């Protein structure tokens, strides 16, 4: 350190006045994976920010064009990797819309239950990470504990904790296990208890509220113009939920509320997710109650569904069925379709173009977190640097979905 210059007249020293360029680089604990924000700061407040995404771009849409329709499932899994079941369900529904088939009732309830469990785990991750970045480590650990219970259940059902690639066109890979109903109810009870505890801990904490309340406000008009959907849009006060507006599977037959925020700030986005977890738990309980215990999981169409392996090794017909579906790919009729479901972050859309063969011509994944991240600029401009953390956390940008 240089020695103090005692003869310096402080009034004559010029303080630097140009705005400072700070690079909150892609490798940063608060950047949720890999997002680079180049900020121009004037003191503490952000005058301009350039949000640069794409560090997790893996070229999924191009890769889908090189395989078959059934081989797209692992790719969509790894889009929103904290709620992979919702992606699987979304893509299967898109393919089934193109084929014009509907899965059996048992499968519909099963898909709903697994999807809502995935949504709960998505919100647990988002809120837990947000709390942790503000310094509240305990709620993060509690929420991760709850998430782990869900993942253990997923492992029992699908064989993998995350990215299970469990969905299939025309059904699911395997039927529910015998203990699914019992375990699902138990898990959902535990998770709700943990969510209550976390809310008690955080909602009464002055520091937490000060950091979130009134921070990162976005107007309704801006949110709609930015194409936001999901919890971010609902926190802005617009009760748009694909499950209610355009019901699919059995969502029209279950009861659940749509939490809507008032102030459209970070606290609202946080609380909307807390409430949504409770609503999802409600849905899971109703699904578990109403799901039939017997019946087929897959639709009975040899063009689409793989046969039993024991049959494949023994009979020529099953061999042919297996062969045609695996080698040539299940064929979707030529045409285009746009199918949308409520993903963890909003409207997860699949725009698919088929040329009639087993290879996809174009699979476009409409990523809700891509548009949420596009709004980050508007949200944090004129906020202080410290507010970037809760703002970005409340948007729930999932790198896999944003960049694909």
């Amino acid at each position, binding site marked *: 350190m240089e020695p103090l210059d005692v003869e310096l007249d402080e009034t004559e020293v010029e303080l630097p006045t140009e705005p400072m360029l700070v690079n909150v680089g892609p490798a940063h604990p608060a950047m949720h994976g890999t997002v680079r924000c180049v900020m121009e700061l004037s003191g503490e407040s952000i005058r301009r920010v350039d949000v640069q995404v794409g560090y997790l771009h893996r070229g999924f849409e191009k890769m889908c064009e090189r395989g078959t329709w059934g081989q797209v499932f692992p790719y969509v899994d790894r889009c929103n990797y904290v709620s992979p079941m919702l992606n699987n369900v979304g893509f299967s529904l898109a393919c089934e819309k193109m084929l014009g088939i509907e899965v059996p009732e048992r499968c519909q309830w099963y898909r709903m239950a697994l999807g809502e469990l995935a949504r709960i785990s998505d919100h647990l991750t988002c809120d837990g990470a947000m709390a942790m970045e503000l310094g509240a480590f305990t709620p993060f650990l509690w929420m991760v504990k709850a998430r782990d219970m869900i993942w253990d259940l997923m492992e029992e059902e699908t064989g993998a904790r995350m990215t299970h690639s469990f969905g299939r066109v025309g059904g699911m890979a395997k039927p529910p296990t015998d203990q699914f109903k019992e375990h699902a109810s138990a898990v959902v009870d535990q998770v709700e208890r943990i969510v209550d505890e976390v809310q008690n801990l955080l909602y009464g904490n002055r520091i937490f509220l000060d950091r979130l309340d009134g921070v990162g406000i976005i107007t309704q008009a801006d949110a709609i113009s930015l194409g936001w959907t999901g919890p971010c849009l609902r926190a802005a006060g617009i009760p748009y939920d694909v499950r209610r507006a355009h019901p699919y599977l059995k969502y029209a037959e279950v009861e659940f509320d749509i939490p809507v925020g008032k102030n459209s700030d970070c606290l609202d986005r946080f609380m909307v997710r807390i409430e949504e977890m409770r609503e999802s738990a409600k849905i899971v309980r109703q699904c578990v109650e109403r799901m039939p215990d017997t019946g087929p999981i897959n639709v009975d*169409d*040899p*063009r689409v569904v793989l046969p039993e392996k024991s*049959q494949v*090794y*023994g*009979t*020529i*017909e*099953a*061999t*042919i*069925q297996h*062969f*045609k579906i695996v*080698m*040539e790919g299940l064929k979707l009729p030529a045409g285009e379709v746009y199918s949308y479901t409520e993903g963890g972050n909003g409207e997860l859309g699949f725009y698919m173009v088929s040329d009639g063969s087993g290879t996809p011509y174009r699979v476009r994944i409409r990523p809700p977190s891509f548009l949420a991240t596009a709004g980050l600029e508007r949200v944090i401009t004129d906020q202080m640097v410290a507010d970037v953390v809760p703002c970005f956390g409340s948007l729930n940008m999932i790198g896999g979905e944003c960049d694909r």
Partner: protein
Amino acid sequence: MPTFSLDGREIEFQPGDTVIAAAHRSGIDIPHYCWHPGLSVAANCRMCLVEVAPPPGRGAMMLDVLRYDEAKGQYVPAKKPKLQPACQLPVTPGLEIKSQTSEHVKEARASVQEMLLLNHPVDCPICDQAGECRLQDYWLEHNGKQKRMKDEIIHMPKAVDFGPTIVYDAERCIVCTRCVRFCEEVVGDPVLDKRERGNLGEIVLAPGRKLDHAYTLMTEHVCPVGALTAKDFRFKARVWFLRSVPSVCQGCATGCNAYTDFDPRNQTVFRHRPRDNQAVNKYWMCDEGVLDYQRVHKGRLLESKVRSQTVAISEAVKAAADEMRNFGQSSAIVLSAEHSSEDNFAVFELGRALGIDKVYVTGRASGQGDSILRDADKNANRAGAQLVTNGAAVGNAAALKTDIESGAVVQVLALGSQVETAELAQLLTKLSSLVVLCSHEGPLASAARVMLPASTWAEATGTFVNRGGLAQISEKAITPRGDSQPAWKLAMLLADQMGKSLPFKKGKDVKAAVSRFASTSAGAQA
């Protein structure tokens, strides 16, 4: 033209057509196994059964059948109309046929498919037909259910050696007799026949004979299932990895239309299949032609040589230019009946730019021809090579031999790999200078001072004129192997090196120039 109604659509037909032939001509596929447009009608597979509307004023002919009633759990008597095989039913004006729109036809197709698979072995993983097998396609499209028989399948002889080219598997055979009819009708050699009946039916050879005529690989081509497989292609490649381009067979001057199947991942050509062309080869190709694809990979010269030392192509081009600087009055251009018109045109123009006016054409030696398809001239483009000179005098191999012997020709720029006679091959070594653009090992390559590797027909699009004067285009399948390039490109390199300009700069220009004199009065055809 008179029409008949098929599934509500009006289809044109010609007098003498059967329903399936008329539908095939209009591009509609009625599922079938044993019918083939080039063979007689057998009507033994029963897959093409269609429902015929009865003549006005009469009811349909109803048959008594037993149908399984789910509710009662037993077979109950029912009635269904008698269906007719579309391959045998002659079309008359006003005929009304229901194919896809009839429930009875759907049921019939599902049943026929079930029966054909009843004793079929679980061979898909090892069967070469997988990926282009009608049993697979039709099962998925028309049946989709498991068979009801729970017993072990009837076991029949497998991997029966039928001859030098074909292997037969009786378990996979559906005894459609396409192979039997082919050998008898198209080739005129009834060496195959059907034996036994029912589920013991199989195809056998005539006693003491082997399947050894000149078109045996066509039996594999007509076989709709994996019963007849070609020894040459067995277990080599899976068809869904192969891509096809339309090409022209290089085996002889008939110029049968073919498909070249290659694997784009490793750029290897795996087989030839015939392509329909009523004007040239109808539906068939001969064995020599089908196996001709091997020449893309066998005996190839892939690197340039200067006096049998391997060099880079740029070096070889320089050396060739040095050699050709002295070419003049006693030089000659030798074109190749094996190469495309584009290659020949480019070399001819190069010769003209160098002031060489003696032109000859050589090619492979003649072989056996017959009245079915094969031509004795085993070169694909003799007519084309002569046409590109646009009327200039072209000598043949005998003339070239005479001229070399007499000393009128001492320097040669040659295109091609083979010459017709062994004497001419000997004489080549007597030349004072020989620059060769060739693709295969042979007398021209061994005698050459400078040898530049040329691509074969499979590595460049080219025009080939057959014995009837028809110009046909063969498309590029794989990228040129090794250092080889299409001969017309090599000619351009040589011209550039020698400071001469040719009347073309790109492949498109060569093609355009060639198409101007690509054919005789028979007319050009793509």
